[in-house]
């Protein structure tokens, strides 16, 4: 295994920017953190759990899929060589799940082209990033098992780096990396991981809620309660690493000219399931919330979940950002409440 002194990290990433578009955690002047184009001055390792997800790199919020000019159409597939530095293990699982869904039976070329040209570097979590982290419950962290090109362990003054692919190996072929005995590295990683697992409590209510949903004994009143207070912002879907629904629309700029584009959508909106007749199989906010959470905790696809627990990766962002506290954690706790 390789190691890298922490003081050399910025230099290494800077060298990568010559060949790659590097997205890395950045601290804005107002204190906010987000993944953004690497810049030495704003790069930070103290970034917790930024709200914007790696999925936005592969499935941008809005994306043109073809252009029409003078009645002739031209497909638009945009991608560039990208390094995503420092995503969390839960987000890695989110990417694995999303990629499975987007390529399993029909290849979403706009997504997969970007994914193929991306190098993923995961930063293992030494513990919870905040009180809503529950990746140990969903088998998606604190240390990614696969999917990554490189996996970094922060050991204080240096990083131990695990390689996950040839592409990752290539990145380590030049630069101030030093070799470390695999056994010694393995021991250090085990200690790191054991501590992280101990520090991120397992949320048993999630298992119990899944069981009750499966057995059909979850109280329907749960959905009524949440449905009444949901403000229909769709934010839970937008911050979710495994939500990939989009809406397709045309925008005509002049007769015979325009674009077809897609944009993030959310199953919390009534129009998402409304049929052409006007009939809506999910007619109430309660039924839409039920659909969303059952999709994560009950009706997930076995292939897509990539050997994790379910369609939720335990990042806790829905609980972090929902203005009225309707996240997976709150929903699970409400379902098991007597």
């Amino acid at each position, binding site marked *: 295994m390789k190691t890298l002194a922490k003081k050399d990290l910025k230099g290494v990433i800077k060298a990568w920017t010559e060949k790659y578009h590097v997205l890395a955690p950045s601290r804005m*002047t*107002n204190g906010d953190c987000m993944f953004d184009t690497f810049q030495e001055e704003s790069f930070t390792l103290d970034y917790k759990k930024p709200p914007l997800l790696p999925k936005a790199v592969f499935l941008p919020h809005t994306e043109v899929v073809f252009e029409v000019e003078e009645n002739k159409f031209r497909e638009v597939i945009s991608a560039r060589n990208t390094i995503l530095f420092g995503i969390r293990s839960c987000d890695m699982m989110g990417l694995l799940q999303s990629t499975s869904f987007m390529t399993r039976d029909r290849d979403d070329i706009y997504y997969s082209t970007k994914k193929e040209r991306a190098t993923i570097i995961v930063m293992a979590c030494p513990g919870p990033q905040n009180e809503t982290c529950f990746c140990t419950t969903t088998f998606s962290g604190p240390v990614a098992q696969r999917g990554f090109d490189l996996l970094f362990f922060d050991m204080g003054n240096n990083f131990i780096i695990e390689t996950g692919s040839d592409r990752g190996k290539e990145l380590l072929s030049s630069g101030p990396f030093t070799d470390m005995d695999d056994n010694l590295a393995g021991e250090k990683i085990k200690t790191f991981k054991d501590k992280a697992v101990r520090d991120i409590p397992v949320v048993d209510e999630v298992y119990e809620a899944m069981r009750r949903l499966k057995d059909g004994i979850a109280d329907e009143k749960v959905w009524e309660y949440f449905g009444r*207070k949901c*403000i229909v912002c769709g934010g839970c879907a937008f911050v979710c690493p495994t939500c990939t629904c989009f*809406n397709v629309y045309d925008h005509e700029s002049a007769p015979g000219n325009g674009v077809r584009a897609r944009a993030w959508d959310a199953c919390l909106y*009534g129009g998402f399931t409304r049929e052409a007749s006007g009939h809506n199989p999910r007619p109430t906010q309660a039924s839409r919330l039920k659909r969303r959470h059952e999709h994560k905790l009950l009706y997930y696809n076995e292939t897509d979940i990539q050997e994790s627990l379910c369609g939720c990766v335990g990042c806790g962002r829905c609980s972090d950002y929902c*203005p009225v506290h309707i996240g997976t954690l709150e929903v699970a706790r409400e379902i098991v409440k007597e």
Partner: protein
Amino acid sequence: MTNSINEFEDADLFLVTGSNTTAQHPLIGSRIINAKERGAKLLLIDPREIPLAGFADLHLRQNIGTDVAVLNGMMNIIIEEDIYDKKFVKERAEGFEQLKSVASKYTPRVVEKISGIPAHDLEKAARMYAIADKAMIVYAMGITQHTTGTDNVKTCANLAMLTGHIGRPSTGVNPLRGQNNVQGACDMGALPNVYSGYQPVADPAVKKKFEDAWGVQGLDDKVGLTITDMMVAARKGEIKSLYIMGENPMMSDPDTSDIEHALSSLEFLVVQDIFLSETAAKADVVLPAASFAEKEGTYTNTERRVQISKKAVASPGLAKPDWEIICDVSRLVGYPMNYSSPADIMKEINTLTPSYAGITYKRLEMCHGLQWPCPNEEHPGTAYLHRDRFSKGQGTFLPCEFKPLAEVPDEEYDFLLTTGRIYYHYHTGTMTRRTSILEREAPVPLVEVNPDDAKRLGIRNGDQVEVTSRRGSIKAMAEVTTRVPKRVVFSTFHYYEAPVNLLTNAAFDPVAKIPEYKGCAVKVRRCI
């Protein structure tokens, strides 16, 4: 707002009136929902059964346009039962005797007759509000868009002062601004009577200050016209040209036929907008402006917080940020404005506007905004207003008498039409109706009709109905719902297919000149 949005977390009671908060200010609405869960009380005074009604401890559904009577009635009870804040009234307010004498006429029985609110409910409401430790009044256009809009606002202020629910954290009077920067536009003097920071144009010292700063002589010290005055003047030929920026009066102003007449009477109309709106289509010259995402600058939100916004995408075609267009026009008419950037303009704002003096670009870059008043660079900004004194010193009770709507239903026009917005669309739809998902969510204009009325008129959910006032007629789809009371219909001004302002009454509040969008007489029939 006299308070900050964060103060919703500590209030014990919210009096929400004339605000469909979860639809129009959903993040503030969510604060109220969360507060309810921790045990705060919600007192709702609104004719419509809006989503917050499901959370209200008490919902008073007053007849439209009777707000002054209802609030006076509450004050009558509070004074009668001796539960007003005597210390606050004595130390910080003046004119209590006048208030008492006006309020004394609004006994619960009298108010019940005017407003339809049962006397015992009004008594409950009055006690709830008065005895709460920290109560916030929250209102929006349901209070202001009336010929008595100014009276309604004064009466809200009277109620807050009478009970001492102002000047402490989580107590105050909170008009929720309906647009992201309407506070900022007003702060910057986009009003006929003031320069930035509400400095009067008629004040000679203020006039001199701005003349010196801008290197000019003879700035006009006469108060100009409001939008509604301008339309009247245009119709009379007293105004020859108009320069309209980011406003769509052909859809948003009352009595559209009259507005169209006014704009057609002009010799020259310039419209500066991001899309060719219904108003821009009538212009002699259209100046393409950059959208919010295509420019840099600051917005001042409903809690007086000035926040920086960065450019995210390039403008299409020839579009430019508004400030650049204004500088270009100014240069062409012979007064070069040599601003190099929004930051440069902010420097001038800091110099000339005392409440913004400490809100520098440099500071804004480093935080999540600053709330005015912020008089110097060391000042942290102001979370809530009127702490130890009101800006004028003592607070003066300004009691108002109830006045009915300018147009009340009669035998022929037997319904009241009230208008507003829905969750998915913003104003005249210039932006939101071009946004795929928002348009998908609310693609057609609806008119809310009460089930009793619907039954009587043979209207079923989804039927086309025709709504007609003395000024015009529109057709839209009926939504049969108890959200509206009997003899009231509700519709929005988002849709060009059913422009509701063809119907509304161009009667104005005498002071603020705001039109009475919230009530006019109409008749309703099912289209065959």
